[in-house]
């Protein structure tokens, strides 16, 4: 057994899943003396290591085989098992993506070790990798360790850490292994999806309009802004009477419950009926002329003033 921290680099098509790079940076940050190793599975023509190298792992281990194109979870886990069982890292981190959360447990079962899912943080306490994860929603946190078995495995939630480039001498090892095709499964196709949900409850960014933003000019600008930010326009109940909006756009108790990363409220006072629909929004920005509007109590950022003026400024300054 060595003391290395390994990070599984997930590749979707030709693109590196950003979480993998974030994990390399995080691993470097907590590693101390421990070498950080990026583990890549790719087809022979791909050169993912070139990009990964920029993030400064001490070592990159690549597993190359043409069959990694459209490989099944079981096939990837089998390949990883060969190298992990052989080189015996101390820890092995996966992005908590669908793929990471599907492959890691199959590998865990082969290695008979522990795996903590969906961690929000990790740190070392001696040789123990302390894995911090939420349980029962995000209200209760749990610290989990795997004291007696190695590797210590965890999947880690995307976009918790920042990927930072770092230049170092990276050793690249092309590990030879045998790709074992799984007989009873076949990946028929992989079709890319553009992540623009037509459903406001799943939108990542929401521009919400209320009674204080109910005019043609502002609505038009809101649509533009939503386009720029890749989001959707939502409304509080009064605006559902407008021709351009329907119940589909409505946020609140009698409409949709939303959970965007960013919500910008224009001219919304923040009545209870509305507030219950936005409880799960991550960042909330609100614009209202009334400094005492209840919506400000539910917001991270408050702008007391004109919706139109703020919207224009946003349109100008958002690239």
């Amino acid at each position, binding site marked *: 057994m060595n003391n290395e921290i390994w990070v599984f680099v997930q590749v979707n098509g030709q693109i590196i899943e950003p979480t993998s790079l974030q994990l390399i940076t995080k691993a470097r940050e907590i590693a101390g003396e421990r070498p950080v190793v990026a583990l890549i599975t790719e087809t022979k023509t791909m050169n993912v290591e070139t990009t990964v190298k920029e993030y400064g792992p001490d070592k990159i281990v690549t597993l190359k085989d043409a069959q990694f194109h459209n490989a099944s979870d079981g096939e990837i886990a089998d390949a990883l098992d060969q190298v992990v069982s052989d080189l015996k890292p101390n820890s092995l981190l996966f992005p908590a993506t669908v793929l990471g959360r599907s492959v890691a447990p199959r590998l865990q079962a082969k290695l008979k070790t522990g795996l903590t899912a969906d961690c929000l943080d990790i740190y070392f306490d001696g040789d123990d990798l302390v894995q911090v994860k939420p349980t029962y929603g995000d209200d209760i946190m749990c610290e989990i360790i795997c004291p007696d078995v190695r590797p210590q495995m965890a999947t880690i939630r995307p976009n918790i850490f920042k990927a930072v480039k770092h230049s170092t001498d990276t050793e690249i090892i092309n590990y030879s292994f045998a790709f074992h095709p799984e007989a009873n499964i076949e990946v028929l196709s992989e079709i890319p999806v553009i992540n623009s949900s037509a459903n406001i409850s799943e939108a990542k960014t929401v521009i919400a309009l209320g009674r204080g933003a109910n005019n043609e000019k502002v609505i038009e600008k809101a649509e533009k802004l939503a386009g720029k930010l890749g989001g959707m326009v939502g409304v509080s109940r009064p605006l559902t009477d407008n021709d351009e909006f329907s119940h589909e756009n409505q946020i609140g108790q009698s409409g949709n419950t939303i959970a965007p990363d960013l919500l910008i409220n224009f001219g919304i006072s923040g009545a209870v009926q509305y507030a219950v629909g936005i409880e799960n929004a991550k960042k909330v920005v609100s614009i209202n002329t009334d400094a005492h509007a209840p919506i400000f*109590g539910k917001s991270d950022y408050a702008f007391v003033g004109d919706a139109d003026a703020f919207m224009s400024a946003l349109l100008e300054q958002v690239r």
Partner: protein
Amino acid sequence: MTNDKVSAQNMLHRMIVDFTANELAPIDMKIDQLGDYPEGLFQKVVDNGLLGITLPREYGGAGFDYIAAAQAINAMAFGNASMAVTLEGHFKTISQFLKYGQPELLAKYLPSATKRIFAFSQTESSGGSNPTGISTRAVKQGDDWIITGDKIMITNGGLAQVYCVLAKTEDDQMAVFVVDQDMPGFQFGKREDFIGLRGTPVGEIVMDHIKVPDYHLLGEIGQGHEIGNNAHDDARILMGAVLAGIMKHELKIAVDYSKQRKALDTPLYELQTIQEKIADIAIAKQNTELLYQHGAELKTAGEPYSEIAAMAKSYGSRSAVSAGDKALQVLAGYGYSREYPIEHLIRDARAMEIAEGTVEKMNTEIATKEVAK
């Protein structure tokens, strides 16, 4: 009660809570505005077996007792009082079938009670729920009866397909007969345009020489009055449950708002005037719950429950109207707005100061019983 029975009752309650939260509560305001159930909603109630909650297993129902049924109706009324009242009208009618119906009648009708609504009709245009002045006639013709007359203000009238009707025989005796919409001479009349419980259809049926066999008679000739009163009692327990559900809704709106809204920098709930109102609503809700539950327990245990049932509805309806008024005041301008459901909750509750016997009539009954003790 056995553990299984408690578990089943809890499961039913959870099912109704889920069904209400998903299917009814989101369209509560829409039902009020529409003045009807939206297309397909009633079918969902049927498809999920809710009409059969109290119907015995032998007829294809779930066979829950009245305690469980009242609890279910209470949970539903929290999200939408109209549909809860629709079930109330059906359940109370099934109760009369079970108590007074002849085996042949039960075998003919009850298996369909999971799919179609049964209604109980007493009122005529000649006056209120007071049955003595009715003009619907039942005339014996060989082995059959010929029913002729008009019934109005029937809960679920128009939606229901099977009707118990109170009629007078030739010798002026009161009796209850069962007719259905497929019988020659049966016609639907107009639907009422009521200010509350706007989802629940309330309508009229017109019977023109409907011929029914003798076994369509509930109980015996001369028992009509008693059966009518019994139907009232059974309805009142469930209406108590509806009213407690409405008050739970009113309480929630007032509490949520008081936590969220500030007067200057003080949250509303810290103000004594607001606390007073919240406490009043909570106490009235709790009292009504205790009354309807006790009524359901007495009925299930086979003990007299008429007076408690009257109390549940009399106290519950007045309280729910006044609790709605208090909740409205907590929300002030928003409470007065049609954007918030409070105004329609008040209109809904108001119906039950009248239906199934007015508050005044019930209080007379309660007082009479107290004096006779």
